[in-house]
Structure formats: C-alpha cells, structure tokens
C-alpha cells in the first residue's frame, strides 16, 4: 500500500515512557535523522530525579520532546502533535502536553493491569473508554507483543528482546514521517560493535516497526517535513548544550595556548561537562574530580595561578559553597571561569529541572564588594559561544567570570554549523615577562588599559611575589590596612569589571525596532521561546520588539538608552523576578516581570498571552 503524503512545516513529537524504556535514545535517534535530513530542530529531554524510579510509576516517566521543521525553529515546541506513550504512567503525566486533537500512539502492553496499578490508575481503565481522549486520534500498537514476535526465533531472552522495543517505535515513526533507516542502522552497528546478534535483532525490530507502518491500515498518510530552506548552507552537527560548553573550554584553552584544568565535583545538571572533557585528555585537558566544590574551585584557582586556564563548574548548591573562594578570586584577580548550570532551587530543589534562579546569587553571593562578570548562554549551541567568550574575558581581563547555563539548554540539543578552529577569535593571555635583578621591582598590582593586572606565573624568573585575600596595597600587592587604599582598591576592582563594557558588543534588538510599543527583554535560555512568541506577534502586526541580553555583568553600555526607546519593557524569567531587579535598579524603569517557576521552560502560547496583555494594557 502506498500511503498518501502530506507536507507539514513543523512537527512536534513527544516520546514518553519509563526511564528503562530507552526514551532518550529513541528521541536522540529521531533527532539525528531529522538533522541529517536538513530539518531545523530543537529538543527537550525531561528526566525523572531518580536513577531508576520503580518501573511503570508516574515518578519514573522520562520524556523527550523534539520539534523539527522546514522552517526555522527556536524551541522544542509547546505542546506536541504526536504523543508516543510506552505505558499508562507516561500518558497520565503527558496528556496535558498534547495539542487538542493530536495523535496518541500507545503501547498496549503498557496499559495492562500491572501498569495501570503502578500508575495508580483504575485497573479497569481502557484507552477506548477514556472520555478525556475524545477528539484525539488514539492508536494502540502492541509494541511489546510485536517486538517479541519479531524476535521469536532470535534465541534472545525476553528481557533482551523487550529492551529493543523502542526500536520498533522508532521504525514506526520513521515510516510515519517518511524517514530513512540508515542513520540509525549505522548507529546500531556502532553501539553493539562486536555483538552481531544484538546488531541483527535491533535492526530487525527497527525494520519491523517501519514495515508495520507500511502495512497497518491505521495510518493512511505519511507526513513529510522538507529540509529547512532558511538554514545557512554548510556542514552541520548536532550538539547538546553541555557538550558545546565543554568544546568551548577546550577550544579557548587551545587558542590561548594554555593548559585547560577543570576542577569540579559532580552535580546534576553540570556533570556532563566533566564527562565530556574527561574523554578528551589527548587535547591536554586535565580534569580533576575534587572532594567537594570548595576544593574544586580552589584547585582551579591554583591552576590559574600557575598559568593554566582554570575552570570550575557546578549547579546552584555547589555554587553557593564556592562563594567564599570566589571572593578570593576577585581579590587575587586571576583568570577563572565558573560555570553554573542552573537547576530548580532553593536548596536541593528540583535537581533535574531547569530554572534561572541563580542570577542574583552569582551577582551578589559573596561577602564584601566582589564584582564578577557574568555571561549567559541562550541556547544549546550558544553554550559554545558564551563559554568561549567567558574564557576570553577571564584570560584577557585577568578576572573570574561566571558562565551561566541551565538544565534546559544544557541537556537540550540543536544543529550546529561546524566551526573551524581558525575562525575562532584569538585569545591573548597577558603573562608578565621575566625580569633581571637590575630591572625595576615587579608590581603585581599595576594595571593596563583594561585595568587588569599582569598574570605573573610561578617559575618565571624575577617575578617572585606574594598575593592573598587580605586587602592589598595598590601596585605592590603587599598587605595594606590603609583606609584610602582600601577604597581605591575596591573602586579599581569595580572599575575593572565595568571596563569590560568597552570590550563587548553593544546591545542589539533581536527583532522589532526602536519605538515599538513593548520591548521584551530576555536573558539566558528563554531566548528561543521569546523569539518565537515575538516573531509570531509581529507577524500578527503587533508593535513588539525583542532584545536578548547575554552580558549580564557588566551590561552593554547602550542598554539604558535602548530601553528608554520603548513604552514598556516586559521581562519574562524562569524565576521569581531576578534580572528585573537589576534592570529596575540600574535604569529606574518600571520593567514588568513575568515569571514561571515550574522547573519548566515557557511555552510560546503563555508568552504570547502575556505579551498581548501588556500590549493591550493602557
């Protein structure tokens, strides 16, 4: 049977099932295939907090949302067109994420009595009998049974057989969306290298799923999503935010001619940067898993002091622990990159969920006057650029710098146009040169035009000097309790950070123009969704503009002027209102906060509603 083909601009699929069901892998494969076919994509994995929550329970549901299209895509999509559920719990959790009238593909075995019980649903429940599903297109497929049948004669045990049922689903969806199987086949061959039986069976099941689509009457139509036309030509890869950050660190060290030392203590969702870096020792990367976050940052500072690019990373609770040491970094004035992959707080909070609620912590979370530059990434691929920029500023301005990311972009992925190392901006460390005895004495706290001090690394002839956390005399760096000197040094440290504003781009509008009625001012991972919402509203003829800040401290020099060009400034944040405090303080404008504190990114529709409200208000 040849199916009818229907063309769509953009499709959102949400794979959901038990953490043991291979949901992330299935989503990842579909993503790779979509990417390789030239679609624009954006993904959003959503894990449970437990390693393996009891099978079949609501707590154990893992999700992977994928948005792909022939048009430009900036978010993983609000609600999905197709919801794939491997069991009852997955439906229970995710039904609200499906568009009205959307498609449900449900694994029948996942709705047996045992699974219904585990999901705390009525044991008599049936999909057919569920009133709430009226208006949706529900397709039950007995994935488990079909997989078992496919592998009846494979000689594999039931457990192993069942483990490949995600391949059936994937094959089926490949058929639905008219995708080729070869990319996943290649992946299977790589993954199970040396285990020919597993290669064979997985491919068999994948194909079985595909053929099931062809044969089964239920889906008369295949959906075609053409390659994205607007995408710049070139070679692409897929990249996850944390991976991009790791690549940026390696690249920056390389471009600056420095060793990379990464001192950290594992914590969700930052650990994957460590995992990625530790696989690249042959790039001269030294990773150090310290005993705690304090040792981690101090080891990184020790490395920086020695002339390496010292980097430390954590998430909220770990960053809190580093506060005292960050104060020392400010006082010592050494290059250091502090990565904060934010998650839901306060305290342990929602470790696997996303939030932007550490901005004020990184801005102010230390004793004394201790200003630190802050750069925030806006998307998975931007994790590369922003982290690279953080390294550049740290090294060239000889200062600790915060790189802010969050669980959403750290785990999300995007296509990324492959860069050449040559194309990356140069980074020039400012090492103090060796001196002879007859030279003038070395002044470790003298400053250049950037107001930064020389990086004088141990082992350099003639530069022996002492530094520490007690207030230092200007120029010499000797201990000084002099009142005026303290005021001078405090102001110099602040001025040095402020001065960075001369070395960063001015704030631009991402969309719209000066004089529009409302400016939406966003930062960090909300970029994609705010961009989408503003774009859609502009297409509807609304007078709304969008600016997205990545340099959180110091702010771009022209930001105040830019903001003054708009009647209203709306600031959506995934927190209880943090950047808005900084903006209101600096510019004394009645910026309007709009907050979501659910451990989840904004939806486009939520934003559009709020924006419309602000547009319509007097």
């Amino acid at each position, binding site marked *: 049977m040849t199916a009818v083909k229907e063309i769509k601009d953009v499709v959102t699929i949400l794979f959901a099932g038990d953490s043991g069901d291979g949901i992330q892998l299935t989503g990842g494969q579909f993503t790779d295939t979509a990417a390789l076919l030239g679609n624009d994509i954006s993904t959003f994995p959503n894990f449970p907090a437990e390693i393996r929550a009891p099978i079949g329970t609501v707590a154990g549901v893992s999700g992977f949302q994928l948005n792909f299209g022939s048009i430009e895509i900036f978010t993983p999509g609000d609600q999905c067109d197709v919801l794939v559920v491997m069991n009852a719990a997955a439906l229970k959790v995710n039904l609200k994420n499906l568009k009205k009238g959307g498609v449900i593909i449900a694994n029948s075995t996942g709705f047996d009595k045992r699974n219904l019980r585990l999901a705390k649903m009525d044991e008599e429940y049936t999909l057919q009998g569920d009133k709430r599903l009226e208006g949706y297109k529900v397709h039950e497929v007995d994935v488990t049974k079909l997989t078992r049948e496919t592998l009846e004669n494979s000689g594999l045990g039931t457990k192993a057989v069942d483990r490949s049922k995600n391949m059936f689903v994937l094959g089926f969806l490949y058929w639905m969306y008219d995708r080729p199987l070869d990319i996943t086949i290649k992946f299977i061959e790589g993954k199970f290298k040396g285990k020919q039986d597993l290669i064979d069976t997985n491919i068999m099941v994948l194909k079985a799923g595909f053929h099931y689509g062809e044969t089964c009457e239920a889906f008369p139509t295949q959906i075609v999503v053409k390659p994205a036309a607007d995408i710049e030509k070139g070679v692409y890869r897929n990249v996850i935010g944390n991976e991009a950050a790791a690549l940026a660190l390696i690249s920056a060290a390389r471009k600056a001619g420095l060793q990379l030392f990464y001192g950290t203590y594992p914590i969700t969702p930052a650990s994957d940067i460590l995992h990625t870096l530790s696989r690249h020792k042959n790039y001269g990367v030294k990773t150090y898993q310290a005993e705690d976050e304090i040792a981690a940052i101090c080891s990184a500072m020790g*490395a920086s002091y020695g002339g390496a690019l010292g980097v430390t990373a954590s998430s909220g609770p770990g960053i809190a622990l580093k506060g005292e*040491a960050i104060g020392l970094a400010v006082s010592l004035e050494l290059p250091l990159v502090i990565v904060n992959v934010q998650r839901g707080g306060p305290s342990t909070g929602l470790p696997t969920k996303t939030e932007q609620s550490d901005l004020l912590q990184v801005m102010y979370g230390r004793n004394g006057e201790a200003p630190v530059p802050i750069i925030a990434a806006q998307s998975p691929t931007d994790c590369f650029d922003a982290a690279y920029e953080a390294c550049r500023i740290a090294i060239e301005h000889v200062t600790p710098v915060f790189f802010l990311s969050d669980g959403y972009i750290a785990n999300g992925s995007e296509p990324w146009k492959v860069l050449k190392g040559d194309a990356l901006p140069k980074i020039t460390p400012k090492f103090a040169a060796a001196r002879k005895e007859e030279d003038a004495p070395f002044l470790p706290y003298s400053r250049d035009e950037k107001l930064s001090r020389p990086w004088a690394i141990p082992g350099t002839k003639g530069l022996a000097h002492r530094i520490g956390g007690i207030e230092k005399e200007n120029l010499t760096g000797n201990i000084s309790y002099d009142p005026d000197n303290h005021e001078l040094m405090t102001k110099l440290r602040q001025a040095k950070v402020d001065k960075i504003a001369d070395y960063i781009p001015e704030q631009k509008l991402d969309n719209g123009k000066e004089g529009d009625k409302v400016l939406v001012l966003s930062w960090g991972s909300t970029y994609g969704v705010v961009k989408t919402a503003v774009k859609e509203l502009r297409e509807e003829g609304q007078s709304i503009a969008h600016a997205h800040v990545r340099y959180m401290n110091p702010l771009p020099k022209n930001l105040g002027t830019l903001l003054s060009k708009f009647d209203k400034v709306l600031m959506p944040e995934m927190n209880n209102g943090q950047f808005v405090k900084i903006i209101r303080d600096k510019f004394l404008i009645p910026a309007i906060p709009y907050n979501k504190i659910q451990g989840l990114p904004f939806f486009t529709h939520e934003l559009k509603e709020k924006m419309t409200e602000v547009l319509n208000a007097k």
Partner: protein
Amino acid sequence: MAEETIIKNSGAKLAAKDYATDQDVRWCPGCGDYSILKQVQSVFAELQLDRDETVFISGIGCSSRFPYYMNTYGMHSIHGRAPAFASGLRSINPDLNVWVITGDGDSLSIGGNHFIHMLRRNFNLNVLLFNNQIYGLTKGQYSPTSEKGKVTKSTPIGSLDHPFNPLALSLGADGTFIARSMDRDPKHMRAILLRAEQHHGTSLVEIYQNCNIFNDGAFFTFTEKETKGDTVLFIEQGKPLIFGANSDKGIKLDGFKPVIVDLKDTSANDLWIHDENDRVKASILTRFFDDPSTEGALPRPFGIFYVEKRDNYEDALITQLNKSIEAKGHGDLDALLRGNNTWEIK
C-alpha cells in the same frame, strides 16, 4: 635539583637571608613561628632552592602569614583550603616546588577534609603543620588538637572534645611521609625538613610550636631542657628506641604493647628498632600520645614515623594524559569541533 638551581641562579650562592622578603615579620615577639621560618630559610639556603621555582601556599592563621616572609612565590589563600590550591598548581606544573603552610585549626578544623584527601592522593608537597594547640589569630579559642578540658576564650570552663591525634589521623588517611618536630630544636627541624623535601609525595611534618600569647608553654615538657630528656623520644631509622636524660631508658614491645625499660636491665639489642617503613609500628608510635604528666607515660616521639613510596597524583595524571596523546594523537581542534556525525545543507 640543588645543582641545577645554582646554575639558574646564575652561580650566585644564596644565603638564608636571601630567602627573606622586605616585609616586616608580624608575629608576636617570642612566637615559635620565628624559629620555624628561620630553619626553613636555612634549609633553602643549604639546598640552594630556586626562589622562582618555589611556591608557598597557606590558609589563614598566624602561621599562615608565613608566605609573606619567604622571598619566593606565595599565596595566602583562605582558611583551610591551602591543600586544594596546591593540588591544582602541582597538577598543571609539577616542576614547581610547592610548600603548604598550615596551622592546627587551618588543617584539622576547617581544612580537615582537604587535609585527608591530600594525603591519600599523595600530591608531591611539603606540608608544615604548625601545631600550637590553639587558634592564635582569632585570639585564643581551643583547637581540634587542644587537650580535653582546655580553658580558653571559647571554653572558659574547659573544652569537651576529645582531640585529634594528628599523626594517627594522617596515617589513617594513608599519608606516605609522617613526621614530627618542634620549634625549639632547630637541628632536629633541619634534619626533618631535609628529608621532607626529598620525599616524593605529601611530606607531612607536624611541628610543635609555642604560642606564647594564648597557649604559652603547651609543649614545654617536650621542648625545655629540664624535662625534655624524659619526655621526648627521638626516633631514627634503624636505631633502637632510647631516651631519658641520660639515654638510660628504652622502649621494648611486649606483644603489641610498648613498655619502658631501664637500659640497666635490658640490652639495646632487645629494644624496638625503629623502622620507618613499617606501618604497623608507625601506627603504634603515633599512639605514644599520653599526657606526659601521667604516671608511666610513654615519651612523645619526634622524627620520621613513616615513609612509603607510592605514586603521586600529579605524576599519574600526566602519565595518563601523555598515554592518551600517544594513543589518540595530539587532539586536533577541527576534528573536535566537527565531531563524529555531520550532515551538509547544500
């Protein structure tokens, strides 16, 4: 290393005073820290260690002001964290000669965790633990090494905590070089510092140091001529454990139990022979920790308790890195950025 250093210093031989900075030394007059500083400077001169290749890293405390007085590189860091700074520094530049200076509060109170992890990882560091059994800089609170019942500013009717035995703790944390010396015996300190500098791994030297302001005389039984003879046991590799004002007493083992014997009755051959490579013996020796005023107290040992050869962390790190480069080739940036899975949009 000494020879190479002399060349680096363009042949000019350095005196102890060349290792001093121009900063005023700001310890209280009479503080035991002065004598330790002096010995370290002397040993540096003796070995002609390169000032520009040396880094002193300290935490916070009176003792931790030490780096300001050494004409080398130095970092006065934050309270308790010196080992962590040192670990990063050694990891990226194993050519530097790194010394960690710390107090009993700095290393064993707030810094206890870094201290034990440093020991197990065995970074190549020389660690001088200035034990004065008090918090000096904060003006006299008891420390984790203060004896129980100690009356201090924070314990006006006596402290309650059982103190750490720093060397027993260090041995429990798998330290590879464990020694004790005292501020008032420069010769002994010199000998121990020389050995510490030789050891490739974390050389922990506990130094009994008098804080004459807040804990004056804490160690006088061990350091003053009048009492020292009977309370101090100097241990030396391969030598029998002999002590006493007239070297007339020795230590013998009765099963696992060390007992004091009179050399009139027992021949030196029957005494416990010190073996710094024997961990069990070292662990018994670290437990010679009696209050010297109690009846039949064992003497307090000074010297090198234990030495073990074990890989240190930074060497292993560098070896692993080099092996990885050998195996995979020196990482190519373009290849890294490209990754394994690409597609082209035409």
